[in-house]
């Protein structure tokens, strides 16, 4: 599996009088990690919601590989191969860990309605294949021992990793991670860093990451795009962004660089 690139050209989203995302353009190269950072309220999550079809952009276009996905529905974008996690965890909390991953695998399970009702036509084989795949992903994220537990009963860090496992079950070529380290302890963050690097190395996934943990962003990112008040204020290699005075200002306030 190789990653697909993502090209965003001049995308805007307005909520009433608030311009949440303002003519944002960026590009995530295939197989690379792009981080989107910015202060709280900069429009990062809204931007993700535009990419995944939860919102429709008011202007601009989004290209996934060579395919224009602007204004497509959430579920068709997902089935094209964009998996995502949510900042405020959105697991199916009443389902088991395994079932959560199997839901992610929904479109890859080749079963029709009649064969599901009567369990014929290779239903069992397909179901066992899907379960094996789900267990594989759970092992990858060190969650396999919890496979039969309810998702709601997992610890915070485990829930975040389950979100990643579930998104991976889509077999995406682009993975959008919305603050995957939020609420994790330093050890868990460290483990997560290795997992994300492994995803890039093993699966060749393109990854777009929203994250506030700067140490993590700096080590993981191939490129960084910085948003403030819905607009891109900087874009470049980690070192470039780190040294950019506008970025420092955005984070620390005017005169912050001297403080």
């Amino acid at each position: 599996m190789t990653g697909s690139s993502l090209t965003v050209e001049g995308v805007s989203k307005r909520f009433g009088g608030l311009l949440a995302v303002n003519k944002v353009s960026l590009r995530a190269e295939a197989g690379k990690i792009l981080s989107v950072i910015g202060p709280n309220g900069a429009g990062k999550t809204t931007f993700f919601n535009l990419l995944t079809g939860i919102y429709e952009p008011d202007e601009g276009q989004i290209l996934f590989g060579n395919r224009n996905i602007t204004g497509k529905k959430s579920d068709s974008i997902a089935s094209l191969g964009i998996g995502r996690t949510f900042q405020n965890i959105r697991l199916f909390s009443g389902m088991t860990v395994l079932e959560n991953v199997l839901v992610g695998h929904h479109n890859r399970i080749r079963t029709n309605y009649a064969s599901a009702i009567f369990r014929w036509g290779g239903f069992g084989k397909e179901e066992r294949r899907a379960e094996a795949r789900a267990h594989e992903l759970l092992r990858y994220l060190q969650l396999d021992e919890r496979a039969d537990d309810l998702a709601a009963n997992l610890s915070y860090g485990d829930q975040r990793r389950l979100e990643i496992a579930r998104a991976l079950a889509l077999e995406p070529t682009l993975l959008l991670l919305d603050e995957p380290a939020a609420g994790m302890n330093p050890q868990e963050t460290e483990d997560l860093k290795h997992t994300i690097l492994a995803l890039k190395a093993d699966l060749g996934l393109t990854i777009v990451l929203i994250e506030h943990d700067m140490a993590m962003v700096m080590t993981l990112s191939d490129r960084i795009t910085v948003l403030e008040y819905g607009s891109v204020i900087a874009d470049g290699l980690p070192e470039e962004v780190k040294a950019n005075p506008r970025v420092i200002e955005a984070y620390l306030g005017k005169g912050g660089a001297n403080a």
Partner: protein
Amino acid sequence: MNRFVGAVPATARLAVTVLLLAAMGGFLALGWGAAAVLAAYATLFVLAAFPPDPRWKLAALAVLTLEATLGLASKIGGDLLFIALVGVLVLLLRLPKVAVWLKVLLGAAVLLLGIPIAGFANTFLFELGIQIGIYSAMALGLNVVVGMAGLLDMGYAAFFAIGAYTWAIFGSSQVQHFLTTWVPLNGNFVYLFMGLAILATAATGILIGLPALRLRGDYLAIVTLGLGEVVRILANNLDHPLNLTNGPQGITGITKPPIEGFQALLAALGIPRSASTDYQLFFYLLVLVIIGFIVLVNVNLARSKFGRAWVAIREDEIAAKAMGIPMVKTKLLAFATGAAFSGAMGVLFAAQRGFVSPETFTLTASITILGMVVLGGMGSVPGVILGAAALTILNLDLLKGFSEVLNTMRQDGTVLLGFPMSQLPSQVDPAKYERLVFGIILILMMIFRPEGLIPERRGSREEEA
């Protein structure tokens, strides 16, 4: 609760069970109906709350089945022992660590021997069993829509009506009101029509669902409620200009399926027969087969990508979409599946009753079926069946029975606690307060067991002792 249970030693629990069963047997022998019923219920309570060793529990259930069947066969204790049989089935379902074939054997004994034997003694019990079956099947269908997919459908009886009228119109002389040359169909077509009704109601479900399923939660409930009423009012008014449904009078003389073959089988097996019980037994067994099939469909769907997608939508619609689950298609599938169950049962209902009228398909009917799902436990197959059994028994048997008792007292001039029962105002009639009792039960359930009698179980693989 569990600490409390543990405080009673296992031998004591067993001793109490044995004692109660012996007492029940004694009361039956003496012909003390009320005492036997109390002993039976006490046994069930002890077995549920203070279970002895599973194997003993199974044995106790078997003895209880035997005693209850004997009681019912000799008409001691009225219909109340029937509830004990239902209780046996429920406990059987929840019995851990016992070989499955033993459970199946006892379950089959209750369903295929106990209830039919009781039915021969009192044909009302056949009717009760059939109605429980029909409502269970519908509740299982609604369980897909409400329980699994979380789509609140308040107009479910509409599909029941469509199924019932499909057969009612073509299976009676009603058809000649608008197709003068057509002959009422032969009873064998019932089975074909169950298939047709499945297709017709699934299609109607999709048609109604396409606009309605854009809405969520309360809004969907209101729209489906309206659509349910539309179907009922159509049935009520389509007697002119063209007489399709015969309006409020309803359709009578609906053909039943022929049962000559079944009767021959009964004769060959030496089973006692009479004109009324033949049909009752036939429909009872038919409903059992259909329930078995519907349970299978329900369980299989729940454990497939479709069932998982439904639950995912119920849990979090946005996350489900982000997993690539097509919202409209998946919701429509749930709606159509539920509708199909209801439609098929409608055909059976029309054929069994021989009569349909719009009154059966009111909003109250939809709410009753919804109540069965909520009471039993949304998403839980055994729960939903128990909910259907409990409410059907309550409506058809307990409240009416209680009314009869009060009436007898009124007429006999019994004096209860110094109060002459003949003075009891006629408004005090439990059968009239069906909805009130139903409401109270639902409120109590919401307080004490909000997840239903037998909640949906996911995850935990170990069974309750």
